[in-house]
């Protein structure tokens, strides 16, 4: 992509998303291995084995794999919570050395602060010295983000007054407030009922289109991966490595009962079963 084309793309995203959200960054997972020390003289446990993959800037990538294979662990390494035994993570060629507001994790069980209202939770990041904004600007950002996730009427509710899906939306808004380049989502909709999950997938796609973030989402739901992703990374059982990267070239919004959709889903299911 030429510099001009990149700038044009960036500009178009800026206008859609409002004035301040910046687009995503590229993540390079470079020959990452992870071993946990074995307990009491037992052999060390290999969790990740030589995982390499490139997440393109602004793309939507899903990671699927057998449960317990180390998908979430890989996400924790990218987030900077865990250090790899070998290999490294680069975001736009800068090595990751620890957690940063530029790579934010969204979990299955929401971690909204129960003592703050929805709006206060979203405002939390902006109140910190690391990314402080003038009060009026912060208030405008919070309002815009709560609107973006469709909960304008629930700003003053406490988390316990919101449903699971609403809490997940606020969680996403709170992460977006500090303007991260990358959203790391660890089975974010796993705790939601089936209907809410479908709605949230569409909502997430809309938010992704409007903000241009790089999204890396771990799921065990094949349908979810095919609906959402540009590329799907299929992992092998532990020690996990990349079994195959499946490109999904279907136009969005994707309908689940279309034959191309089923073909991709079927291919993924075969890969996963072969892996077991």
């Amino acid at each position, binding site marked *: 992509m030429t510099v001009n084309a990149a700038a044009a793309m960036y500009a178009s995203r800026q206008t859609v998303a409002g004035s301040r959200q910046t687009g995503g960054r590229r993540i390079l997972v470079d020959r990452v291995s992870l071993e946990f020390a074995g307990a009491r003289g037992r052999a060390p446990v290999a969790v990740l084995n030589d995982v390499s993959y490139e997440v393109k800037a602004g793309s939507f990538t899903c990671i699927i794999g057998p449960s317990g294979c180390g998908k979430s662990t890989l996400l924790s390494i990218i*987030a*900077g*919570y865990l250090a790899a035994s070998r290999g490294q993570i680069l975001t736009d060629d800068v090595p990751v050395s620890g*957690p*940063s*507001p530029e*790579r*934010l*994790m969204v*979990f299955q*069980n929401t*971690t909204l*602060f*129960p*003592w*703050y209202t929805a709006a206060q939770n979203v405002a*939390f*990041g902006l*109140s*910190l*010295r*690391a*990314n402080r904004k003038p009060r009026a600007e912060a208030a405008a950002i919070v309002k815009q983000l709560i609107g973006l996730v469709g909960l304008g009427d629930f700003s003053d509710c*406490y*988390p*316990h007054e919101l449903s699971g899906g609403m809490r997940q939306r606020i969680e996403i808004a*709170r*992460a977006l407030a*500090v303007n991260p380049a990358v959203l790391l989502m660890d089975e974010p909709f796993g705790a939601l009922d089936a209907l809410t999950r479908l709605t949230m997938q569409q909502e997430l796609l809309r938010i992704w289109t409007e903000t241009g973030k790089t999204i890396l989402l771990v799921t065990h739901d094949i349908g979810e991966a095919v609906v959402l992703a540009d590329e799907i990374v299929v992992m092998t059982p532990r020690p996990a490595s990349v079994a195959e990267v499946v490109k999904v070239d279907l136009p969005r919004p994707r309908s689940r009962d279309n034959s191309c959709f089923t073909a991709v889903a079927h291919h993924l299911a075969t890969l996963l079963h072969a892996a077991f």
Partner: protein
Amino acid sequence: MLRFSPFLRRTVSPCALLLVWELISRTRTVDPLLLPPPSVVFAEIGRLLWGGSLLLDLWASLRRILVGFSISVVISVVIGALMARSVLFEDMLDPIIELIRPVSPLAIFPLALLWFGIGDGSKIFLIALSCSFPIILSTYAGVRGIDRSYIRVARSLGANQSEILAHIILKGCLPQLFTGIRVAWGIALIVIIASEMIGGVAGLGYMVLTAQETFRVDRVFAGIVVIGVLGFSTDQAFRALRRRLLPWYQELRE
């Protein structure tokens, strides 16, 4: 009964108690010299309020509680939080606390009299000491009970240590701390009366004891009722304060 308002349900039993008490005394089932009827007791409270020393005694007790309690809250919250965040502090302070905690404050009071005199000092010391245990323990439990994922999320959103302390740890331990503070306040009320009875020159405990020595049973009852009402109304105030400060925290039944 459940179809009546909670207020009515909560008023009916104290009223019934007063009524039975009045009847027992008026019918001389029990000698009114030993059990004066509530009407006489309330009349005595009225007399003591306008012209008597009740307000002075009440203020003497309340002042000692407030000073001792406030000192205790400040010191105990710091100690409890340090113990919760640092294994070193916990290992060093825990044995000391567990050794002093079971000792009755009244056993320490003679010592306090020697150190701080018969005035306010000894009582303030005793209250600060006996309030500190529930507050230290509840702060410790509150801080330890904070979900680690909140701290992790705050850190990744960019919070530094002092911001995590202010926004996560202090906020998160408040419900537990509040419970500890209510327990401590109850202990303070018990300890102040007892210490004023053992060695005091003013206060509700002193008032009740001198009334007993002069066989003014109505005044003894007046003192007891005032102490009870003081405890009840301050606890209600704590509850109201908690509803205001912690709207996000709901007890199972309020």
